[in-house]
């Protein structure tokens, strides 16, 4: 670029730098006036527009420039920066690819072309560009870029096997003849090995690993060390692995990976065919390198035993690995019924417990072994646990007691049937320990965890256990008090807070759920893994008085991560190429896709749409952004995979074996892919109908028959959606000029050659029959609601029915919207048109009843139920020294929140249905 041009552009760059978009645009326009086709200025203008969120204008301008096939670096860069946030990655590829073809010696352009291709996973073209770069620029980095794209294409399941082999063979040849060996950098070496592994050339890979350089690299790379071990297993070099592991363990390596390597190689069956190694996948191998023979299993077992025992004696309590090694050894010995002559598992567990009972993780350590005990041993084990007297006078004693209590609870079921009273009794015993232990943490700051926290967690879980057995509300309410109490003492005890959120959801205190959720300060990627805590079936709680959009906001905040992932992870993939960290690239690519296709993302999307539609009147159709919603729903349905990244382990399960605290406290069955699919389809067809696009009706009712992801009410609304289609879609779908016939029910659309949408002709009778089922839906939900109120169901169940009834109305609204006023298609006085009016009126009337009932229920949140609450929680005051006014405060907050919820929903329903 000549200096004059550069000077002219300077103010634009400066303005963009400081984000003064207006000024940038002015400068651009000024220059463009003189020279309308100056690409770089146009590109900078597009960038300024894009940054100012004038997406459409920016996009259109980009199209103009792209037509000129620009190839100067400044234009390319500006376009790249504009197109990226617009998601137009394919255009970036074409742009750079064309430019590179014209300037094959320009490294920067080539590199950008390559990276753009990676972003769209175009491995094939990336390979070509990578090779070309390597050959022209002569920098080895580009050989490895090429190799990286080869391994990615080879790993793609869509690549045919023959093609895979060819690609990898060519790659291996390049590697074998390269001037600079791959071991100059760990990650190049890693990639080299990956290519060989792709070819199943285990021998060459092993030789590389065993070379002096290879060994050196392994020493300082756990990643390579792992690959080395996998290679050894592939050729069944078990004896080599066994010796290596034993050596490392004896030298004081406590990494459990090494222990597992020793354990695995101790129990592996000797290679079968006359001493020849047979790889686990049964594939025939080339002749393995000289490998040592495995000694008989009992000999290996006693060797491992000796190694572990010796270490146990020397490390004392400092390290758990050797002790746990012994337990694992014994467990496997039993599973394989080998005589080992060692003490019984239960006795070894006792020793372990005595040694490590002061470590909080002792319970988790022992769990798998408790599960392995037979009945007789279990009795012995339990007796042993019982023989310890609970003691919480010191921190050490507290940890021990905590472990013993958790272990006892874990196998409580052997005590015979779990009875609610017993669970409650147990809860109060935990509470006593909690209270007695609290003084140990009295000097800690509020942000620090109290050592006694887990006793209150245990107590809450036991109370929830009691409740799940006989559904007496008192247990649930007591659990709430216990958790609130624990949080008052230890505000950062997140397991208490998260469990409390679950309980508040069950109890319909939705504002408290959000309050506590926000207090956990969920950030960035945690939105994907943790937002299920408040957003699962959140439509249940989102309907409220106008102005309250907290759940809608929460959805948007949680969704920001999906946009961030797309830019941030993408950039980091580029970085990993630039820094040549090839070992990371497959992980990064995978990570990007896991978030991009996340199930939780789609669940939030659907909840957000349901919330919006139950919130906004259809008159505001513009505001609803229907085309975007349709696009998003289509995306949901097009995903090849829908990974579930939700972290359900975040609330530790302290229930007896076979019970699960999450199952006990969640709202309905867990929704997964089937749920996302059906709801996406329901809204897709309803929204499309709104813009007069019709698809052949598909029955979802039958498609979800075997699925366990839906509540009863959700099933009903799905059937409703089917019925709605049967009722109106055939008529709605008819071309406008033919509809007088259609309305008479005698239409035959094939007559005039127009497309047949349905195999059978719509008849008035069928349509009217379906309309009856539609009205029936509202009657059924109302009956269900009354039943629930009568049996004092949990508030969430009542809110759920009400929100599903409202959703039913929304679906009716969407489908009947085009028929609201008489048109060519449905004439006044026509029975079908009449049925629209009748059904709508019926739905509105039904929802009014829901609204009235919710208002009535909201009055029930006053002082009388608060008194009941206090009475139900009285045992906490009497037996656990809770202050009455603490219980009162908890109850008051709970009822205030619920009242707000019920009132808000009552109002929200009326607002939506008028």
């Amino acid at each position, binding site marked *: 670029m000549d200096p004059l041009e550069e000077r002219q552009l300077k103010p634009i760059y400066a303005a963009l730098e400081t984000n003064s978009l207006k000024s940038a645009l002015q400068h651009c326009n000024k220059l463009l006036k003189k020279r309308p086709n100056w690409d770089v200025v146009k590109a900078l203008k597009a960038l300024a527009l894009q940054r100012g969120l004038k997406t459409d204008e920016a996009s259109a301008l980009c199209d103009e420039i792209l037509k000129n096939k620009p190839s100067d670096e400044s234009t390319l860069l500006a376009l790249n920066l504009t197109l990226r946030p617009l998601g137009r990655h394919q255009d970036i590829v074409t742009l750079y690819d064309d430019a590179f073809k014209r300037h094959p010696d320009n490294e920067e352009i080539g590199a950008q072309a390559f990276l753009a291709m990676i972003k769209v996973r175009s491995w094939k073209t990336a390979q070509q560009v990578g090779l070309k770069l390597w050959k022209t620029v002569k920098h080895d980095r580009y050989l490895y870029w090429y190799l990286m794209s080869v391994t990615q294409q080879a790993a793609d399941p869509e690549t045919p096997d023959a093609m895979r082999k060819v690609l990898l063979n060519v790659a291996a040849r390049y590697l074998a003849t390269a001037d600079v060996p791959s071991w100059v950098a*760990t*990650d190049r070496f890693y990639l080299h090995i990956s290519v060989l592994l792709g070819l199943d050339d285990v021998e060459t890979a092993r030789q590389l690993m065993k070379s002096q350089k290879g060994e050196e690299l392994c*020493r*300082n*790379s*756990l*990643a390579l060390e*792992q690959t080395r071990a996998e290679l050894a297993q592939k050729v069944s070099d078990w004896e080599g692995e066994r010796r290596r592991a034993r050596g490392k363990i004896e030298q004081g390596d*406590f*990494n*459990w*990976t090494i222990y*597992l390597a020793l354990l695995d190689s101790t129990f592996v069956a000797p290679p079968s065919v006359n001493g020849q190694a047979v790889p686990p996948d049964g594939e025939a191998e080339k002749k393995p390198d000289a490998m040592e023979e495995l000694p008989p299993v009992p000999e290996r077992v006693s060797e491992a035993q000796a190694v572990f025992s010796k270490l146990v004696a020397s490390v004392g309590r*400092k*390290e*758990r*690995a050797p002790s*746990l090694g012994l337990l694992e050894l014994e467990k496997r010995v039993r599973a394989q019924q080998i005589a080992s002559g060692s003490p019984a598992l239960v006795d070894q567990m006792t020793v372990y417990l005595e040694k490590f009972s002061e470590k*909080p*993780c002792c319970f*988790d*350590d022992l*769990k*798998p072994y408790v599960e392995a005990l037979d009945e007789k041993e279990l009795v012995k084990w339990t007796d042993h646990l019982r023989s310890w007297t609970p003691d919480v006078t010191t921190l050490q004693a507290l940890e021990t007691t905590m472990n013993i209590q958790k272990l006892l609870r874990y196998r409580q079921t052997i005590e015979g049937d779990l009875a609610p009273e017993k669970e409650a009794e147990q809860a109060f015993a935990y509470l006593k320990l909690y209270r007695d232990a609290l003084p140990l943490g009295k000097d800690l*700051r509020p*942000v*620090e*965890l109290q050592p006694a926290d887990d006793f209150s967690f245990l107590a809450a879980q036991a109370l929830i256990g009691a409740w799940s057995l006989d559904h007496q509300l008192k247990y649930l309410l007591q659990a709430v008090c216990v958790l609130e109490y624990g949080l008052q003492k230890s505000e*950062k005890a*997140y397991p208490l807070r998260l469990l409390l959120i679950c309980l508040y959801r069950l109890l319909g205190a939705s504002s408290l759920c959000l309050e506590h959720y926000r207090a*956990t*300060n969920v*950030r*960035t*990627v*945690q939105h*994907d*893994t*943790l937002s299920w805590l408040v957003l699962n079936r959140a439509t249940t709680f989102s309907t409220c008085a106008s102005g309250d959009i907290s759940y809608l906001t929460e959805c948007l905040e949680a969704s920001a*991560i999906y946009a*961030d*992932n797309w830019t*941030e*992870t993408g950039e*980091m993939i580029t*970085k*990993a190429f630039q*820094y040549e*960290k090839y*070992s*990371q690239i497959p*992980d*990064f690519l*995978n*990570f990007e896709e*896991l978030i991009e296709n996340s199930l939780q993302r789609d669940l939030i999307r659907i909840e957000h749409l349901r919330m919006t539609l139950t919130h906004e009147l259809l008159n505001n159709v513009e505001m609803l952004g229907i085309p975007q919603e349709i696009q998003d729903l289509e995306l949901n349905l097009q995903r090849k995979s829908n990974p579930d*990244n939700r*972290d359900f*382990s*975040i609330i530790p399960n302290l229930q007896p074996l076979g019970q699960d605290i999450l199952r006990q406290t969640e709202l309905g069955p867990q929704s997964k892919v089937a749920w996302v699919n059906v709801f996406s389809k329901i809204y897709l067809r309803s929204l499309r109908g709104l813009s007069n696009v019709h698809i052949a009706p598909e029955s979802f009712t039958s498609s979800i028959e075997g699925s366990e992801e839906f509540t009863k009410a959700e099933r009903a609304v799905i059937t409703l959606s089917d019925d709605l289609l049967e009722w109106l879609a055939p008529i709605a779908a008819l071309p406008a000029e033919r509809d007088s016939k259609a309305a008479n029910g005698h239409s035959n659309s094939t007559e005039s050659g127009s497309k047949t949408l349905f195999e059978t002709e719509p008849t008035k009778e069928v349509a009217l029959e379906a309309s009856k089922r539609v009205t029936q839906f509202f009657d059924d939900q109302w009956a269900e609601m009354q039943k629930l109120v009568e049996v004092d169901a949990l508030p969430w169940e009542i809110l759920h029915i009400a929100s599903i009834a409202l959703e039913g109305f929304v679906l009716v609204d969407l489908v009947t919207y085009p028929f609201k006023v008489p048109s060519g298609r449905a004439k006044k006085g026509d029975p079908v048109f009449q049925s629209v009016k009748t059904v709508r009126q019926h739905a509105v009337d039904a929802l009014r009843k829901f609204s009235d009932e919710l208002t009535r229920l909201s009055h029930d949140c006053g002082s009388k139920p608060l008194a009941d609450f206090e009475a139900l929680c009285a045992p906490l005051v009497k037996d656990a020294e809770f202050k009455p006014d603490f219980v009162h405060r908890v109850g008051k907050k709970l009822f205030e929140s619920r009242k707000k919820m019920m009132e808000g929903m009552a109002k929200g329903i009326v607002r939506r249905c008028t």
Partner: protein
Amino acid sequence: MSVLRPFRATDLFRFNNINLDPWTETYSISFYLSYLSRWPDMCYVQEAPNGRLMGYVLGKAEGGGQEFHGHVTAITVSPQYRRLGLARGMMRLIEQISDEVYHAFFVDLFVRCQNKIAKNMYQGLGYSVWRRIIGYYGTGMGGGKDDEDAFDMRKPLSRDAARRSVRANGELVHVSAHNVT
């Protein structure tokens, strides 16, 4: 006793039990991936036999000339798994890699002056205070100055034979956060 292995991008899906902790921050995706994209050999996790993550460390190598050093950016262990020697094991590995792979002169780290447990631990591991960085942590946790300031602690590696990265009275050397990268 635990599996000590490289930190992987997908571990971000599973580190909640560690990060829901007042002393531990959760950063953007680019923060974690920028470490992995440059210093994957300075980033590790400790994993329990049942697959749960127990703790992790993120580190880097930086500085020029005799200032070239390994830096521990974050080290944290879930409350349930503390006092098992996990932090010790991760620090040892970071020191080994800083020494043998990067040939750095020392390893350093910043710790809230208020964080007595961590500070004592580092001292036990051979680190000493090099300087006090004023206002390093923008917002404290209600503990006043000691909460906002950081100690820069260093431990010499084999290449720092003269032990230049150790000085007496480092606690009295104050620098402003603006002068520290």
